[in-house]
C-alpha cells in the first residue's frame, strides 16, 4: 500500500519534470502570445535639471532663534507595503532639519515621526496624537491621498498647517480645508500629462488602463482616461493587496493593447508588471508616482525594463548639492519625493527662523509664502494648490530609474 504512494509521488515528480521541459533554457518571451506592441520608442535620459538661482535653503542666514521645544513632525508611512515612498520623504525632511540645526545654533528644531503605514484606517490615530501635542507647530504629510483625505479634518480643527509632499488626488483641495497645502502638482495635471506622454512620446496606439481601489488610483485613473479618449482600448480595476492579475492580463492580451497604464502603487504594480511580462506582453508599462520607486524594480525584476513613469516630482538626484548630502544621510540615492519633502519642511523652517513660532503664525506664513525652493517655485492659491507644477517622465534603464525630462505642466 505504501508502494502505491511512492509510485504516485514519483509519477507526480516525473510529470512536474516533463512539463517544465522546454520552459527552461527559455530566456526570451515565448512568441506565441503576442500583444499589438512592436518596436519600443527610445527616449534618452536627461542628466541635469535647472535649479532656481535664489532657492531658499534650510540653513537660512544662521541667525534664527526659537525655543528648544519647537517641533516639526512627519506623518506617513514608515512601515507597510508602500513604506519606501514614506522613507524617501522623511529622509529628505531629516536632511533639511539637520542642515537647519547645524547652521542655526540658536534654533534647534525637534523632528518627530509618526507612522501611519500609509493606511487611511490607521492614519487617524497618529494624526490625532500629533494635533494634541502643543509643541508640534507644523507637519509634513501625509504622503498618500487616501490617508490625507481621512485626516484633513483633524488638522483643520486644530489649525495645524500640513504640507503634503506627494498626495496627488485633485479632490483633496476641494474640502474647504485651510490648513492643507500641496507641494506638487495634482492628478488633474498628472493625468493629462500622462495621456499626452503615452500617445505622443511613447506613440501608443492602444492603451489599456488599470487602476487600483485607492483614492489616488481612482482619481488618477479618471483624469487619465478622460484625457486618453479614443486611444484607450479598455480599462479594469484591481484591489489593494491583490496578488494574482491573470484575469486582467488575459483581457489586456485580448485587447491587443500596446501600452498599459497602471494608476496605483508599486506594491501591486510590480507583481502586475512581472506577471504581465511573464505572459508574453511586449509593450510598455507606464505607472505614476506611486509606482516610481526602486522597490518596483526590486520586486518585478527583469520585467521592469519595459517600464516608464510619470511623476509630478523633480529628479532630486540631478541636483548635485542635494544628492551628495542626501546620500551621506540615508546611504542611498534620493528617491521619489525626497526633494519635495526637503522643500516642504524648508518652507516651515524658514518661517520658524522668521519668528513664526505658533501654529497660527506658521499657518499664515505658509499661506502667504512666495519663494523658490530647490525643486520649484512655491506659492499656493487659496485652496492649497501650487500655481504651475511640472510633471516629469522617467524610465527604467539598466535596472535604475532615470529621468527623461519634463512631459507636461
Amino acid at each position, binding site marked *: 500500500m505504501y508502494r502505491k504512494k511512492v509510485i504516485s509521488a514519483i509519477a507526480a515528480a516525473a510529470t512536474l519534470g516533463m*512539463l517544465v521541459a522546454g520552459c527552461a533554457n527559455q530566456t526570451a518571451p515565448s512568441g506565441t502570445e503576442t500583444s499589438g506592441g512592436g518596436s519600443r520608442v527610445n527616449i534618452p535620459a536627461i542628466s541635469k535639471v535647472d535649479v532656481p538661482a535664489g532657492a531658499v535653503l534650510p540653513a537660512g542666514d544662521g541667525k534664527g532663534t526659537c525655543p528648544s521645544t519647537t517641533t516639526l513632525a512627519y506623518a506617513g508611512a514608515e512601515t507597510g*507595503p508602500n513604506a519606501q515612498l514614506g522613507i524617501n520623504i522623511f529622509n529628505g525632511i531629516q536632511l533639511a532639519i539637520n542642515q537647519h540645526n547645524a547652521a542655526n545654533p540658536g534654533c534647534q528644531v525637534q523632528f518627530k515621526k509618526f507612522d501611519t503605514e500609509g493606511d487611511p484606517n490607521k492614519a487617524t490615530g497618529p494624526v490625532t496624537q500629533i494635533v494634541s501635542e502643543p509643541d508640534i507647530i507644523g507637519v509634513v504629510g501625509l504622503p498618500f491621498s487616501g490617508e490625507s483625505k481621512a485626516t484633513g479634518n483633524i488638522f483643520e480643527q486644530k489649525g495645524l498647517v500640513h504640507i503634503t509632499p506627494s498626495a496627488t488626488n485633485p479632490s483633496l483641495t476641494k474640502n474647504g480645508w485651510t490648513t492643507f497645502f500641496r507641494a506638487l502638482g495634482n492628478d488633474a495635471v498628472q493625468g493629462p500629462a500622462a495621456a499626452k506622454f503615452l500617445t505622443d512620446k511613447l506613440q501608443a496606439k492602444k492603451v489599456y488602463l488599470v487602476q487600483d481601489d485607492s483614492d489616488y488610483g481612482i482619481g488618477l485613473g479618471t483624469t487619465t482616461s478622460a484625457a486618453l479618449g479614443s486611444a484607450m482600448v479598455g480599462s479594469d480595476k484591481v484591489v489593494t493587496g491583490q496578488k494574482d492579475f491573470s484575469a486582467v492580463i488575459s483581457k489586456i*492580451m485580448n485587447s491587443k493593447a500596446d501600452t498599459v497604464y497602471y494608476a496605483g502603487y508599486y506594491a501591486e504594480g510590480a507583481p502586475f508588471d512581472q506577471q504581465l511580462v511573464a505572459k508574453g506582453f511586449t509593450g510598455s508599462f507606464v505607472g505614476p508616482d506611486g509606482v516610481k520607486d526602486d522597490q518596483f524594480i526590486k*520586486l518585478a525584476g527583469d520585467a521592469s525594463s519595459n517600464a516608464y513613469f510619470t511623476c509630478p516630482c523633480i529628479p532630486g538626484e540631478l541636483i548635485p548639492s542635494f544628492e551628495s548630502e542626501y546620500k551621506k544621510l540615508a546611504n542611498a540615492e534620493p528617491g521619489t519625493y525626497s526633494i519635495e519633502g526637503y522643500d516642504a519642511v524648508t518652507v516651515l523652517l524658514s518661517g520658524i527662523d522668521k519668528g513664526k513660532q505658533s501654529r497660527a503664525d506658521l499657518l499664515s506664513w505658509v499661506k502667504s509664502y512666495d519663494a523658490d525652493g530647490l525643486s520649484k517655485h512655491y506659492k499656493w492659491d487659496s485652496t492649497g494648490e501650487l500655481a504651475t507644477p511640472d510633471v516629469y517622465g522617467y524610465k527604467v534603464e539598466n535596472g535604475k530609474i532615470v529621468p527623461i525630462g519634463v512631459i507636461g505642466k
Partner: protein
Amino acid sequence: MISEVIPTLLHSVPVDDTWITFDVNSFTQNFWSSTFDGLTFGAIYALVALGYTLVYGVLNLINFAHSEVFITGCYGVFFTLSALNFGPSAPRLGFWAIVGNLILALVVAIIASALMAVIVERVAYKPLRQRKAPRLAFLITAIGVSFAIQYTIYWWRGPSPEAALTMFRPLAIFDVFGTIVDSQQVVIIVAAVILMIATDQFIRRSRTGRGIRAVAQDPDTATLMGVNKEKIIVTTFIIGGILAGAAALFYVMKIPSGVQYNGGFILGVKAFAAAVLGGIGNVRGALLGGLLIGLIGNYGQVLLGSSQWTDVVAFVVLVLVLIVRPEGVLGSSLGKSKA
C-alpha cells in the same frame, strides 16, 4: 455578428451605472483563459482544502491554523529558492537544474508544512483533547493559533511581501480555441490532480487510510478494534501538511510575490469554503469544491468586470449551494465507504 450584437445590447443596460455592470462581451472573449486560470487556482485551493477536510473528518474540528501551515510551506519555498539564487527574473538555468531546484523546494516546503501541522496539533489540540475540552474551545484555540503564527511571521519578516520568485518562464504548450495554455498551468493542474488521486487512493486502500476512516466513523470503536487513535490523528495532520506544502510550491509558482505573513489567510478561507462546498470530510468533495471555487471566482471577476468581485461571487455561490445542499455537493462522509 449576433454574438457581437447581443453582448453590446446587454452591456448597454447596466443594472447600475457606477458599480455593477455585466460585461458579457469580455466574458465571452476571456472565457477560456479564465477557465484555465480558474482551474489552476482551483487545484491549489483543492490541495489546501484536503487538509481542512481530513482533519474535520477525523476530529470534527475546523483547523483554522491550516492556512498558516500552508504559509509556512510558502516560506520554505521562498528561503530554499532564494538560497538557490532564484529571484524576480526568470532563472537562466538548464532544464534539469530547474527541475532539481523545484523538487528540492518542494521537499523543504512539505517538511516545513508537515512540521508546522504537527506542532499545531501537539501544542494547541492535543492538550485540549486530553482534558476533554468542549468543541467550542478547540475552535477558539484554532483561531488563536492561526493569529499567533501569522503575527510571529509579521514580527519576523515585516509587513511587506517577499521579493518575487520566478521559477521558470511559462511556455505555451497548446492552444484551446485561441487561448494559450502554458506550462505553468499544466504543471500545477496535473501535479495537483495526481497528488489528490494519490491521497484518495491512500485513504481508500492503505492500512493507515482504513485507520483514518475508522476513527472518522467512530473513534471509540476504532480504538477497541486496535486502532491507535493518537497516531492516526497525527498522521492526518501530517498528510494535510504534506499537501499544503505541495500547494505552497504551486502557489508561489503561480503568484511569485505571494509570500507574505497574511498571504495564507484569504486562500485558507477559500480552501475551507471549497471543502464545505464539496462536502466537508469528503476527499473527492475537496477536489470538486476547489475547482468550483476557482472557476466561479474567476468567471465572476471577468463577467462583472473587476477583480473586486472574485470573492463576492465565489462566496455568494457558496451560500446558494449550501441552501440547496447543506451537506455540500458530494455530501460529507469521510468515514463512509464511498470516501
